[in-house]
């Protein structure tokens, strides 16, 4: 019995596989791009028309420590120098 001819040649199979790979890469890139966009939107930008909501910082140690003690809330403590190489206006 004669075997039936295969509908796709090896070359066309390669072309189809290559096309699928390219399509998959495009989907991945688009997905990554969308995720990146969403991430950027998430960073305190719920107020795109103005100043973003942020952490409320006590700038005086004794004030913050007293509020923590009186309120029973834990402390998130940071310190940074408000100058870079002696130049103000930059942490």
């Amino acid at each position: 019995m004669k075997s039936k001819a295969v509908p796709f040649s090896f070359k066309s199979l390669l072309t189809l596989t290559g096309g699928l790979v390219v399509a998959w890469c495009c989907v991945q890139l688009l997905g990554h791009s969308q995720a990146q966009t969403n991430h950027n939107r998430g960073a305190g930008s719920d107020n795109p028309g103005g100043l973003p909501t942020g952490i409320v910082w006590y700038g005086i140690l004794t004030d913050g420590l007293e509020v923590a003690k009186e309120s029973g809330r834990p402390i998130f403590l940071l310190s940074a120098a408000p100058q870079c190489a002696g130049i103000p206006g930059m942490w």
Partner: protein
Amino acid sequence: MDESFLSDKRLVEASRDFVCIRLATYESKEEAEFLQPLVRTRSGDLENTVFALMDPDATRTIGRTGRSPQQIYRHPGQLVDTMKKIAAAYPGKGDYVNRLPQMSDFRLALNVASCDGLPLVVAVGEQADRRNAMIKTLTTIAFGEALAGKFHYVAVAQPAELKSIDGFDEQAGAYVVVAPDRYGTSGSVVLQIQGDVTAEKLEQRLTETSLQQAKAVKHHHQHVREGVQTGHRWKTAIPVTDPGSIGAMKRMQRRQ
């Protein structure tokens, strides 16, 4: 300081269960003495940045301390998970606040506001009772979601302290909202309101202002280079002990 880490929305939400304190390193001897033992540094001295989570009595640290949150946590979500566990262990008295999150003096407040790219609300009152009344009013609105983290605050006794601020008119109002300049050494008035305004009205005006303002963005190298060229210098209250900063300042001096 990586502001993108600290402005993560989940982190901002988690911070509401904490009392958040951010100090200006080298601007107070007493605060430096508190900070220095919290982080073991290679130099053995207080370096530019410190990060710690602490119990409400500030008698012990919780988890690892370091130079910054991102030194310890790979991404904000990790820190948020830790903060949630700590908040559950110390539920505290909800939204109790009785102090304004303010800075210690105008000069430092203007610089810090500039570093953050945010406006500064100044309560000007020569008499202590009047100044305290304004601070009390600001305290009632500073933590509301409409304004939380959008402004810095400071109270001053002498209007003359605002002499470097463009557009300041002593008669125009005791609440002065200032947009700091790039170097936080000057600025301009964006809003002035009378000191006897109600908290509701003040909140409304500040909210409107917050919608009209945008957070200033600066580029680190350009800022420092141009700061050197234009002769802007910051004198710290106590000597800088961070070897990296000392080296950078020496290199700057040699270039001049």
